[in-house]
């Protein structure tokens, strides 16, 4: 997309925000795929959630309705709950296996 010079546009094109959210989301996915530390993987999930939140906010700006804000608020709440449980799980996993290597924890296979 050609960047129009600032004086030409009033404000920032909405598409930039969405693109930013896409990039962040992709980076989150990348973290999920490439990192092997459970905690890092977990944090990449949080990153994805944040990216989605951003797109929520951006769209609710476009639609001039604050429902998007409320959705992202709920996302935060769920993320909090998820963090609590997830970290507890990670603690137990570490307690039982003395490792955070996600590839060591492959008992899904069998």
């Amino acid at each position, binding site marked *: 997309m050609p960047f129009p010079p600032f004086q030409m546009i009033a404000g920032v094109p909405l598409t930039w925000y969405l693109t930013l959210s896409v990039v962040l989301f992709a980076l989150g*996915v990348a973290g*999920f*795929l*490439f990192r*092997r530390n459970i905690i890092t*993987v977990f944090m990449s999930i949080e990153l994805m959630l944040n990216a989605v939140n951003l797109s929520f906010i951006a769209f609710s700006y476009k639609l001039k309705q604050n429902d998007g804000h409320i959705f992202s608020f709920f996302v935060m709440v769920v993320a909090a709950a998820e963090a609590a449980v997830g970290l507890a799980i990670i603690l137990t996993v570490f307690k039982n296996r003395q490792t955070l290597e*996600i*590839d060591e*924890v*492959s*008992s*899904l*296979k*069998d």
Partner: protein
Amino acid sequence: MQLWLIPLLPLAGFALNGLFGRRLSKAAINAIAVGSVLLSFLWVLKTLNTLGAFNGSLTAYNEHYYTWIQSGALNIGVDFAIDRLTAVWLMIVTGVGLLIHIYAVGYMAHEGGYYRFFAYLNLFMFFMLVLVLGANYLLLFVGWEGVGLCSYLLIGFYFLEKFATDAGNKAFIVNRIGDFGFSLAVFLIWTHFGSLDFGTVFGKVQGMPVEPNVGWITAISLLLLVGATGKSAQLPLYVWLPDAMAGPTPVSALIHAATMVTAGIYMIARSAPIFLHSASALDIVAIVGIATAFFAATIGLAQTDIKKVFAYSTVSQLGYMFVGLGTGAFSASVFHVMTHAFFKALLFLGAGSVIHALSGEQDLRRMGGLAKKIPITCVTLFCAGVAIAGVPPFSGFFSKDAILAAAYEHAPWMYWLGVFTAGMTAFYVFRALFLCFFGEYRGDPHLHPHESPPSMWIPLAILAALSLGGGYINIPKFLTPMFGEPHEGEPWLMYVSVAMGLGGILIAYLFYVVAPAIPEGLAKAFSGPYRWIYNKFYVDEFYDATVVEPVIDGSRELLWRIADVRMIDGVVNGAGTTASAMGNLLRRAQSGYIRDYAGWVVGGAILVIAYLGLKGGL
């Protein structure tokens, strides 16, 4: 008017006794059980009084509580209605029910599962009242099934004896056949009248012409009749009733003599407008009735178990009522329902009192000479006897006479058969009474019969009074607004039937008091027919051979061995094996590394987005 109180009170009694009865004292249980029924009886009196039933100015009254089912055109409300028919039944059910509850307090005093018994009894009252009060066929059906359930529970009350549980099952299963017919009838009514409310349905029927030959209305009527034969123990479904005597005697009196078995009569009388629109159906009702009456009476001749005798007499009396219905004399048969409720309840309660006195002995051949030992029971039982024998001016005379008159108008042969049956009735009832009270005692010498406690003989006395004087409660006149004027028969009919009744009594006296040798001689002389009659014409065996065995074998061989094992299990196991086989193939893809799965997910997401994008014309 709070009609709902009438059934709800016994239900409350059931709830209390059923839930906490185990912990309550007998006095408390009695108070709850009898009290609830008493209250609902009083409430019935108050309601009927305010509705003006007692000065004859009762008009139909309806209460709507809430809409139970509302789907599309189907709209079924919980409505209770009172009209003259209902009024009669309410009086019978609550009144006789109350007496029998009081009686049961004495009778069951020494039984186990005391609270269970009374809880069931109250539950029965609830369902019976719902049945009677319900203002549409579905509520009627609810009550119908409910009383069936209670009858099952109470027949199998002594569930430790196998015969009791068997009898319960038999009653339940046989009734299923009738209920099947009934439910079909309800469906048909819905499909053809678009409603189940009595008012609407009958309103629509009025507009229709009387069906000359078989049509929808006839079909509906006949299906209703099937239901009625099931509940009211008519041919060919009467077989459960005699066995139902396995239950405690108050149960036999309340459920299997006075109230529940008359539900069929109620249902047909309630559906009178429908039946009146199908001549053939009415004929069939009448024929079923008369056949049952005669058939059961013949069986009754040779029974030796006192309760069995009365059971068959019940069947045969119900047959009379059907004759009344079939010949269009609805009011007469309702009248007979009432009188029958009085004297048959009295017979059973009296028999119960006798059995109580002999501590469990039911065989007539081991009784005798009890008149001195238990005078009150004896007297009351004879009151019932004369009532059922149709001796004027006692209650049975009026109602039976009305029915027979209607039968004569309809078809003379029915009249003659009915009269003959009346004679037989008189004969076997008095046979039982003479065997029981006259002659000398043939039972176990060690046991000393004793008179029952007042809680038992007071209800007996009341019922005796009712069965003597009940004929003067002019039910037909009361029901005139619903079923039209009761038609008077010629006097000679009356004389004939009375003569037959008295004749039956005389023969019984001759056979079993004067010359006890004669019946044995007869039994020997006609040993073949006697054995037939004694074994109830082998009907049960016949049903076993034709229906029960095939069903059992069929379900074992076909349904179990083939259908269930081969097909269903085959399908299920097949599904399982196929699934595991597929899984074995697919597990290659399951590396167990979360990140692989994530990769798959991402790939899929990308594909979806690409597809959507291209579709969106990207």
